[in-house]
């Protein structure tokens, strides 16, 4: 809709209602963003307890975070799990989207809803169900079990972004390549794959973040001394509320941002902004 579609008669010298409407929305946005800014402040505030207003700038909480072996082991495990989940969910989710969009599968709508369902069911129940299954078959709580659990909840994100790309691009491009003599394999590797890559990678970014920040699915699936970062932070927060958590939060946020930027650098920014 163009600006000229709005009748000029509606414009008044000072629009009180309109101003209140914008002001209300700015307040609501502040509600969403200020808590995250406050974490930033506390990460650099040197006092031993969370205190406000901040009294200075220090890196002691970052030092505490990076020198604590519990924190570092947890960070290492979380990064390892998230990296595995990224690769697995891209492969499984990417293949699955192709099958759904190009495979002429019967019951496609049902299958798509089925593969999306881990997003709708309580994540804590997915964790509980897997915990009980591992217990029942007597395998304990292996790291690969955690990775598969995270992959399960990450695949829907890859599906969603990849299917969006597959639905948007013109199928005739593939047909043209086939008509011009390309084998099905060549069509796939030289036409389809490059076209869906942005969608798959965007899904991969979500998959990494979903795994790295995952709490409810992990809760019952980690072993003592082998916990992921969110679980360690949660347990720490039950007893201590100091700047180390704020520093850890900052590191998490920066890592998530880093992954987004790295993938942008690898595959190009514009490709998945359009999604």
């Amino acid at each position, binding site marked *: 809709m163009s600006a000229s579609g709005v*009748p000029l008669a509606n414009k008044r010298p000072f629009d009180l209602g309109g101003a209140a409407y914008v002001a209300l929305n700015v307040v609501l946005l502040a509600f969403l963003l200020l808590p995250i800014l406050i*974490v930033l402040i506390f990460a650099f505030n040197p006092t031993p307890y969370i205190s*406000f207003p901040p009294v200075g700038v220090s890196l002691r909480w970052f030092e505490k975070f990076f020198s604590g072996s519990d924190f570092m082991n947890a960070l290492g495990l979380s990064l390892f799990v998230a990296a595995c989940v990224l690769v697995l969910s891209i492969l499984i989710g990417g293949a699955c989207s192709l099958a759904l969009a190009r495979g002429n599968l019967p019951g496609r709508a049902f299958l798509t809803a089925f593969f999306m369902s881990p997003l709708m069911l309580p994540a804590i129940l997915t964790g509980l169900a897997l915990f009980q299954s591992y217990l029942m078959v007597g395998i304990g709580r292996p790291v690969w079990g955690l990775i598969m659990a995270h992959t399960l909840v990450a695949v829907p994100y890859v599906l969603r972004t990849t299917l969006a790309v597959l639905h948007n691009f013109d199928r005739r491009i593939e047909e043209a390549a086939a008509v011009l003599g390309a084998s099905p394999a060549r069509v796939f590797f030289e036409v389809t794959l490059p076209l869906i890559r942005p969608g798959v990678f965007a899904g991969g970014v979500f998959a990494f973040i979903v795994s790295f920040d995952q*709490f409810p699915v992990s809760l019952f699936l980690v072993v003592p001394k082998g916990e992921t970062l969110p679980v360690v932070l949660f347990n720490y927060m039950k007893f201590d509320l100091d700047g180390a958590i704020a520093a850890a939060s900052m590191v998490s946020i920066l890592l998530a941002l880093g992954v987004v930027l790295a993938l942008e650098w690898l595959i190009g920014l514009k490709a998945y902004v359009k999604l």
Partner: protein
Amino acid sequence: MSPTISRPSPIAWLVAPAVLLFVLFFVLPFGVMVVMSAYSGNPVTNSHAYLTVRHYERFILDDAGIYHDALWETLRIGLVTTIISLLIGYPLAHWMARMHSRLGHSLVLMAVIAPLLTGIVVRTFAWMTILEDKGVINTLLIQWGAIHKPLPLMYNEFGTVVALVHIYVPFMVLTLIGVIGRIDERLEQAARSLGAGRLRAFMEVTLPLSLPGILAGSLLVFALSISAYVTPSLMGGTNVLTLPMLIGQQIGTNFNPNFAGALGVVLLIVTLLIVIAYNKILSRLAGEPGMA
């Protein structure tokens, strides 16, 4: 459309890894949860384990007097969280859907999505620093002389709901933007040119047309907030007990996975009812009159 649609092509086999993953790590485990909830112990490792309804009996009879309260508290927190998320999310979604500036739209969208990129634990931590006795709000109010004793903003349902709202508002906004954006703006303009005030045009045209979106977003936020674990545990302290927290206790401290399974089945049934309603509304959305 390709000429042959009936036969699956070889590409269909690419669905196999996903099917394997979902059967082994999703369908079977939920089956195991249901089975466990009906046994006295682990039926594989313990040959004395027998079928029983006692876990469900324990929940239904509620001799301890906590399970019904926990279920009610879970639903109440979910309901209040949903209503407040709607009151906050609707104006934001309406603002974005009616924004003509591309840049403004993507800036607000980024602001709405940014909290989603920070984990639940981190966002709950943020609210603890704001609402605790020595937190931002109480410190400022005491400094300004407005209060002498810190207000009880945390370790209760209030703090839990505030943090949950913050976590789930983005889901509400993202659901509503699409629906409000599809309502033809000219309908509202027509109402106004026929003499309706801005408020009346909104109340009688836009709001009724966005009802399906309101329902869908509300059901989504409700389903998410009744399954929350981190936020009620940290913000509610010992004064809040929800169904997911009970499940956590049964695994973490009591080690009774069978009773945890029964509690899980209860939560699952409540969620499934909501999800079915949600899907019904979403599928009806497609054929809604008045939607472009």
